[in-house]
């Protein structure tokens, strides 16, 4: 079996979640890498939508930013940004929203706004972007984030994007229609919301990762499923396609690596 990094494992595990033919609203960065890996492996008919306007994007290399020209070139069509948010996202046409985030809590709420008080921030983060409405309106949400105690926190300073809010039926009660986050894919494991409490529970450990390692990197007292599974390690094809994609990308963007 091939050697691979934890980051590769994360991307491959996330990519596998995307079904063929799925219409996916793709965030930039890790979500975009995973979504394109899916498209180039098991999900050739996945439809990738970026908030800048491309529908059915088929980039040759990964976009560095959400509106790279390569996203438009092979797309089925390119519409305006307002149309993306109005007719396509809010219109209920998206199956899966694929998001990243700076911080997440046990109910998969996301913070991308501030560390510290809003009016006197310790760290000012970029802000909401498309996330609040993607998380609200897409059929379901997949979140991909590297695991770290400063990222997986007990309490968010700011909820930018609602996941399962305070758990239980609170998401539905707030009037949010989509299923919300159905999985969080990290470099260590996969977490899924408990069917009742909606608290994130570790359901899959990546090969070689221990429960203690996950605990160390999680800011709350994280729970594990009774039938804890091991993630299948990346296949040679998955790794080859991913590495190829990243290599092409670095060459095209002149960003080295």
């Amino acid at each position, binding site marked *: 079996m091939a050697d691979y990094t934890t980051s590769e494992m994360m991307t491959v595990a996330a990519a596998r979640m995307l079904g063929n033919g799925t219409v996916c609203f793709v965030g*930039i*960065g890790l979500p975009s890498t995973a979504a394109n890996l899916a498209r180039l492996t098991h999900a050739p008919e996945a439809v990738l939508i970026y*908030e*800048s*306007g*491309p529908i059915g994007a088929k980039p040759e290399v990964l976009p*560095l*930013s*959400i*509106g*790279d*020209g390569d*996203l*438009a070139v092979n797309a089925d069509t*390119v*519409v*305006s*940004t*307002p149309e*993306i*948010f*109005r007719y396509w*996202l*809010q219109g209920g046409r998206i199956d899966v929203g694929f998001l990243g985030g700076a911080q997440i809590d046990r109910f998969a*709420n996301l913070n991308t*706004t501030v560390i510290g008080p*809003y*009016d006197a*921030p*310790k*760290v*000012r*983060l*970029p*802000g*909401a*972007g*498309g*996330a*609040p*409405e993607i998380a*609200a*309106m897409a059929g379901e949400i997949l979140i991909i984030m590297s695991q770290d105690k400063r990222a997986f926190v007990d309490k968010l300073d*700011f*909820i*930018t*994007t*609602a996941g399962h*809010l305070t758990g239980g039926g609170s*998401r539905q009660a*707030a*009037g*949010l229609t989509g299923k919300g986050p159905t999985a969080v894919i990290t470099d260590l494991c996969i977490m899924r919301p408990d069917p009742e409490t909606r608290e994130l529970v570790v359901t899959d450990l990546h090969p070689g990762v221990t429960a203690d390692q996950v605990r160390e990197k999680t800011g709350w007292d994280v729970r594990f499923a009774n039938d804890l599974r091991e993630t299948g390690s990346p296949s040679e094809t998955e790794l080859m396609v991913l590495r190829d994609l990243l290599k092409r990308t670095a060459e095209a*963007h*002149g*960003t080295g690596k």
Partner: protein
Amino acid sequence: MAKICSLAEAIGEFLRDGDTVAMEGFTHLIPHAAAHEVIRQKRKDLTLVRMTPDLIYDQLIGMGCARRLVFSWGGNPGVGSLHRFRDAVEKGWPHKLEIEEHSHAALANAYVAGASGLPFAVLRGYTGSDLPKHNPRIKFINCPFTGEQLAAVPSVRPDVTVIHAQKADRKGNVLIWGIVGVQKEAVMAAKRAIVTVEEIVDDLEADANACVLPYWVVSAVAEVPMGAHPSYAHGYYERDNRFYTAWDDISRDRDSFTKWMERHVLATRDWAEYRDVLAKTGGKV
């Protein structure tokens, strides 16, 4: 009614101190040359509106042109933080910056409402988010037919919108293609519009349903080749990703930022001279 003129004249005539200014372009066609000219002409007290205030607004904010920022995502895409934006928000340098913060969906809808002559936009948004707690310009209303609760935000109605486009013809009709972002809405929402273009041509050769802005909704058109750099212009040149990365270093420190801006922007006459200096310095301070 579109005046074909130099960029300096366009900014001089149509963009004033205290204006609400939208400079749009979603990764693509960001009007960087126009922003430099605003800095050169030392505009101040501007309310800057932009969905993604990246390098272009980092420069304007760092140079003290902005009093207020309306935005939905402020970062250096694919690189990291906007240091000047953060310094202004976190430490009030060079002076305090008021912010009005939205989500992309809300701000895109606010432009649509502005373009549509409406005072506000309605969307399914912000549910469960803390943003409405900190932004009094996000409210909730009920559908008069179903009773459903929906979010409302005031429309964006800039005094002037600035965009960069691929082409204009000699009357000032403008063609944008590829990733068109929110530019048409930003122009239609504004009282005045300044457009820089890669080239002015005899015939736009536009498709029947292409994104064309007729000359009579444009105040001024200025030909500024490479005017979106380090952003890109589809069909003309690609995004200069190295510059975005380099900006992280240039802008991290107040001093190095100020020196860079003085050398590259304040000490140059126009965009063409800036491009020459940039080629010489290689972007280094």
